[in-house]
């Protein structure tokens, strides 16, 4: 199928026509015509390179009652994504070539986004022995990012070894920075609100101590390091200093940490329970600044579907995590406004680079892979928890009205979303 997108604004620029044929942008310019092409009137729409998520929990295999590769892929496409990195904390854990290949194949079969599996760093996420990282790297899934996400690789010697070892195949260790002894039974950000609510605190220092340590380890062995879901102002300062002296560290932040604070906890509604927890307004301000000035490289969703039973309960008994794929772009627009180049960099180009996804994060110019998304920037949409493509409904943004609506998403020239609806 050939598509001719008429009059779209590339990253907010002048109206342009894009001809998508054979998986690539065949032509870009004004007055483009093509016989037999399906024409899409994109007047008023903005084209972005297809979004890339560094941090998605698809739950399959093991918790298909919360999400499957297919339902998560659909949510991703509807959110404007063309690639997602699927985290390893499935059941069984994605700690072998067999499991990462299974996830990769499920992604191919769903065909709505490129599903790039993340491999576990340690066997069973237990933090004791390295998983067969090389086997995962050379598998069909070609794993490049390794993470025990959900758990911290807290043993400093094991973390050092992992950082060193993955250099053999250009891998990156993505750390879920959480000092486990400082966060035993932790329920929310430790501060004035946790004191009032009588919920065990998750102190900022538990994140910052691990980031500081790992930055030093990465510096010592000369390895690359990625930090998942940075949530505190102190973490930003550690990263800023590390980057300034040339440490090869990258970092991501979630949409929810850019918009919401621990004030949300006061209802005790576990839809706001997440790990790391929602922080203070000062942290939110520091994270926004870090996204703007590049200390934080990427916005990543940490899309974490959970069943109703795991959320409609007492706060302490609820699982941590929030949906994110369908709301990430609207939240970014809400926070940063129509800074299209910034949004393209943090939500597409940088994550594609970090994940080694060469076909993604490319400006939609002639000859480039046709992975792109079309956004209506003037639309304002009220988030409906019951209308998510995800199998779960644990969005913290329910009933909020956010700017921007994804009208179409193209994966290698084929629409995965058209008129705001998934193609399958």
């Amino acid at each position, binding site marked *: 199928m050939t598509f001719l997108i008429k009059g779209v604004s590339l990253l907010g620029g002048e109206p342009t026509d894009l001809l998508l044929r054979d998986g690539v942008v065949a032509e870009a310019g004004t007055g483009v015509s093509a016989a037999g092409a399906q024409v899409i009137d994109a007047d008023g729409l903005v084209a972005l390179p297809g979004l890339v998520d560094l941090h998605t929990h698809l739950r399959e295999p093991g918790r298909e009652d919360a999400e499957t590769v297919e339902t998560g892929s659909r949510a991703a496409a509807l959110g404007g994504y063309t690639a997602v990195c699927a985290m390893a904390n499935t059941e069984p854990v994605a700690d072998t070539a067999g499991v990462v290949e299974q996830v990769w194949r499920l992604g191919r079969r769903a065909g709505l986004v490129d599903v790039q599996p993340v491999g576990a760093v340690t066997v069973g996420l237990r933090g004791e022995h390295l998983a067969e990282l090389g086997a995962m790297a050379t598998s069909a899934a070609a794993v490049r990012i390794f993470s025990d996400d959900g758990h911290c690789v807290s043993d400093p010697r094991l973390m050092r070894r992992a950082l060193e070892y993955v250099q053999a195949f250009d891998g990156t260790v993505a750390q879920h920075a959480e000092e486990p002894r400082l966060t035993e039974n932790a329920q929310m950000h430790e501060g004035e609100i946790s004191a009032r609510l*009588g919920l065990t605190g998750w102190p900022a220092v538990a994140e910052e101590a691990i980031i500081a340590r790992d930055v030093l380890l990465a510096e010592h062995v000369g390895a690359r390091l990625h930090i998942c879901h940075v949530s505190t102002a102190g973490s930003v300062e550690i990263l800023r200093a590390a980057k300034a002296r040339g440490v090869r560290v990258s970092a991501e932040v979630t949409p929810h940490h850019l918009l919401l604070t621990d004030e949300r906890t006061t209802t*005790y*509604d576990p839809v706001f329970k997440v790990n790391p927890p929602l922080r203070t307004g000062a942290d939110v301000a520091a994270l926004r600044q870090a996204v703007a000035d590049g200390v934080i490289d990427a916005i990543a969703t940490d899309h974490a579907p959970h069943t109703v039973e795991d959320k409609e*309960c007492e706060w302490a008994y609820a699982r941590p995590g929030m949906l994110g794929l369908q709301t990430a772009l609207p939240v970014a627009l809400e926070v940063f406004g129509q800074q299209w180049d910034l949004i393209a960099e943090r939500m597409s180009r940088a994550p594609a680079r970090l994940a080694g996804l060469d076909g993604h994060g490319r400006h939609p110019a002639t000859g480039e892979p046709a992975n792109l998304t079309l956004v209506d920037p003037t639309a304002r949409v009220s988030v409906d928890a019951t209308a998510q493509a995800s199998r779960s409904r644990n969005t913290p943004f329910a009933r909020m009205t956010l700017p921007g609506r994804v009208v179409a998403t193209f994966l290698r020239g084929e629409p995965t979303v058209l008129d705001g609806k998934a193609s399958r």
Partner: protein
Amino acid sequence: MSRHLLSAADLDADEATAVLDTAAEMANVAGREVKKLPTLRGRTVVNLFYEDSTRTRISFEAAAKRLSADVINFSAKGSSVAKGESLKDTALTLQAMGADAVVIRHGASGAPHRLADWVDGSVINAGDGTHEHPTQALLDAYTMRARLGRLAGLKVAIVGDVLHSRVARSNVLLLHTLGAHVTLVAPPTLLPVGVGAWPADTSFDLDAVLPSSDVVMMLRVQRERMGDSFFPSVREYSRRYGLDGARMRQLPAHAIVMHPGPMIRGMEIAPEVADSPRSTITEQVTNGVSVRMAVLYLLLGGMNQ
């Protein structure tokens, strides 16, 4: 008053005073030969207890019965609750039973708030995790007022495991509302990060606080806290923060000693202190019934009708 009593902060000064005044009237009823009032006849009060707390459950049960309410005890042991039924499903059951009030004790902070979203009746927090225990604070305030004649301007020292204490949280909020001045006394490990935002002073030095205190409230300290390195040993804790006879004698002559119970004699309080005339421990139990009658009365049958 609002429909629920989830936090001591739900009450403003007038409402809290109304509870205490109503409790005083209820106490007169308790002194009469026929101890029952017909006020809540035909109304159903459910005691939903996820934690064992015989004394609190019995206190609420006695309060409801003296107001002629039908009482259903729904305890965790031997019920569907123990078999893993979710709080939400239990709430729907209570809703179907037509509960007019649910008194809930739960190990998880905020469980009463969740319940209040799912039932139409009034929810009364009878202690949730390490959050609050508002009727305990009301009975403590009642006891202080009965003994000392006022609350405004009183200096109240709350001593012990503030970090894990729902009694401390509710007392700080209510006493502040009623014009008393609270000082929290604890080792730094047992004060929460963020306590600076509370309407209370803090001190690590019990001996410095006692001479100017009108009320000393001793909190229970669980031995297990020692294993988590909140303090090195029971002996060191009681030497620094326990209330023994010598410390009690530092108090002004009129000062009273309170404890929400159950107390650990020899840990936070010496037997000599617990049994002294300053101690209000048994009055607190008696006053608990009157105060809970007042709360049920005001939430279910009182001013709103």
